[in-house]
């Protein structure tokens, strides 16, 4: 069969397979799960997954109806066991972070039991109401909306594209931002975005432009409180780098997007949020579990507000600890960063780090990875060793 014809036929068959596989009341399929979709599973999916797994969402499938969910039972099982979903990979409890997206022990067990136990429907009288994609600003209407300057097209023959947009702020004076958000024009393909500040000052330095925001679908933007804010110099431009990725539903289709950036201003005279880059310049990572110092001891006392990963080995578990001048050790974060889900982890409470504090990482590999077909084998990072993290801090008063 001609390749194109075969692909088309395959696509038809895929749709058919989905249609056929989702009919309730499947014959000869043993039901062993005491949990049903209507009573137990849907409430969890609605509360924890609906931001992405909804019709027109960025996820490859909606999980908001029984018919949509059943074909993905095995996929749900694998993703949960691999720790890929929900894409929140911090070991500590959700109470320590402002944007935590974890699921509880009971919720995990309900989903796994249901996915492996025949995916029963439940009571038809409790069929969930339709869930629509929520296309609103999570923090309310922004103080300033900056639409992308042009519509971007992901061609039919491309599955993934990176696009950069320059958004002039037109600020005559320095401004302070308490939050930045992005409203996708076509949510199904906007997979992630970073927003950096480009100004005369940042252009004169050799380092990368300061990161203003890391946007992910489903990750609520965090508004800084108190007097901390991101400083945007007069006349600065915002450089938005968007990763577009099609799901299989958009395969071989041209998709257009024009998103909008939303800025939320903070009062003047705010305390500037700074980026403290923690780089590991040591020899190649050979032995997992060894402690390694990141950068020099802290020169001035600061309060850490958030952290986000840069480079790191694949399938690595990273623990970042602060070692005080008196030798006391405090764990800041223990997590398993996923390359596709690079986010900022916002501490619930600012963490004070006194002058002379050293920051250390311990890297381990996720050895259960081979147990799951979707995992890649543990490998070193792209450069063989690098662990690079960035702390967002403000000066200690």
């Amino acid at each position, binding site marked *: 069969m001609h390749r194109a014809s075969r692909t088309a036929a395959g696509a038809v*068959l895929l749709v058919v397979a989905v249609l056929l*596989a989702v009919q309730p009341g499947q014959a000869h399929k043993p039901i*062993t799960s005491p949990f049903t979709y209507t009573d137990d599973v849907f409430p969890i999916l609605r509360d924890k997954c609906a931001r992405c797994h909804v019709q027109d969402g960025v996820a490859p499938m909606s999980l908001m109806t029984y018919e949509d969910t059943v074909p*993905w039972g095995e996929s749900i099982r694998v993703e949960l066991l691999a720790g890929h979903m929900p894409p929140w990979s911090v070991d500590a*409890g959700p109470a320590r972070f402002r944007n935590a997206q974890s699921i*509880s022990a009971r919720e*995990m067990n309900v989903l796994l*039991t249901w996915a492996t136990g025949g995916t029963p429907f439940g009571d038809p009288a409790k069929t969930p109401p339709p869930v629509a994609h929520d296309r609103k600003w999570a923090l309310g209407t922004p103080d300033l909306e900056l639409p992308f300057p042009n519509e971007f097209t992901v061609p039919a023959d491309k599955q993934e594209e990176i696009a950069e947009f320059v958004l002039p702020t037109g600020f005559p004076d320095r401004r302070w931002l308490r939050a930045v958000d992005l409203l996708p024009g076509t949510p199904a393909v906007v997979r992630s975005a970073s927003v950096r500040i480009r100004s005369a000052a940042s252009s004169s330095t050799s380092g990368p432009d300061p990161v203003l925001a890391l946007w992910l679908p489903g990750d609520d933007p965090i508004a800084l409180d108190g007097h901390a804010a991101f400083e945007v110099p007069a006349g600065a431009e915002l450089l938005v780098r968007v990763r577009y990725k099609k799901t299989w539903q958009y395969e071989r289709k041209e998709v257009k997007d024009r998103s909008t950036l939303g800025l939320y201003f903070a009062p003047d005279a705010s305390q500037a949020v700074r980026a403290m880059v923690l780089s590991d310049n040591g020899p190649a990572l050979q032995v997992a579990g060894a402690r390694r110092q990141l950068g020099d001891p802290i020169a001035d006392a600061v309060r850490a507000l958030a952290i986000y990963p840069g480079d790191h080995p694949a399938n690595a578990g990273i623990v970042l600890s602060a070692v005080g001048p008196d030798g006391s050790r405090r764990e800041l974060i223990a997590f398993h960063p996923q390359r596709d889900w690079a986010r900022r982890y916002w501490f619930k409470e600012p963490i004070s780090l006194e002058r002379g504090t050293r920051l250390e990482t311990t890297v381990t590999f996720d050895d259960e990875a081979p147990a799951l077909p979707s995992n890649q084998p543990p490998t070193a990072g792209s450069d063989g060793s690098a662990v690079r993290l960035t702390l967002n801090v403000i000066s200690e008063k």
Partner: protein
Amino acid sequence: MRGIAAALCVLMLLTAATTAQQRRAPAPPKLPPLSYSCIHHPDVLEDRPGVCPLCKLALVPVRLDSSWMCPVHTAVIETERGTCRLCQRQLVPVTVSLTWSCRGDDAAHLEPGLCSDGSPRIGQRALRPHGNHNPRHGGQFFMAPDNWHHIEGAYPTARAFRLYVYDDYGRPLPAAALKDVQARIVTKESFDPATRKTTELAAFPLRMSRNGTYLEARVDTATLPAEMSAKVRFGPESDEHRFDFTFEALTKEPAAPASVPQANKTAVVAAAPPAAAATPQPTQAPDLSLGPQAIPSSIPEILGELKGKDTQVRELIARGDFGAVWVPAFRAKELAIALEPHLAHLSGQKRDAGEPALARVVRGAWLIDAAGDVGNRQQVEAAYTAFAAGVADVLAAFQ
């Protein structure tokens, strides 16, 4: 040819279902023949009506067909061999049952036709479950990671290893298919943690037996317990899978056919176990309770039992009894879930540590179950590491 016929069948069904104007039924497609199976023991499959040899219930007719499915994205079912369009994994062969029904009517028919309103019945393809994971020759039985093949390793006499290979119904692979299986048995190997590479020091190719029903090899191991690993490719395009065996004694062929259904896993946690839970326990099951058990009333009692289950899992893994590790692991997860409401009574720091630890116990238990099914020691031990760390953190948080 069979795949193409199935594709045509499905396309015809699609046409029939979506063309509202055409109220005429399509020409009858060529259907797979009827088989007869037990609703409680799907591994029982006959080509004529009768009763289940295990539970004596009347067999029901089923119409089975073959397709190719993604091992992870089970919505991706193709009629030809290939790769998953979502993740590029190799598709694996699956057996599906075909039925047809009408909207608003759960009755499943075994052939297409017209509904009472004149519209064509809608075709359904349902994956057939794995019904029998019990050894047939007294050996150790595992499911392959491709979710289709099953293997059984036997050590009938000193220095002799046998590998039996089955399909998703637990039926022995015919000799023609067994020829495609490439396998070796490894009795000595070393692992370098720095490079994370394993080097085989003693490996023996598995060759077809004279009667064409299993693969066999002479190995250098003569003492008991005998530890060895089978590394198996089920076909030229298959990934290599590893299965770890620990034989504490020479395996013996059962006196009678050992088609004893394995106890239902979910029944351990289910408040109302389904009928399958009442079936006999596997012949090699450990001395562990498989029935629903009450959760202790006090936190110290829960923690004590949790600690005990952790020990049981560790001991079973040490013995290589991977088919049984899920039993105490699943009990441990039930105990962990029972602790969740008590998190509210912990101090902030302990709750912070305890909450994710409970989830890790649950996830670890399911990982142990999955790894135990496929009989890979490395995976079982890695899953146990995650599980045990969760248990330790739970104990630390609640004590």
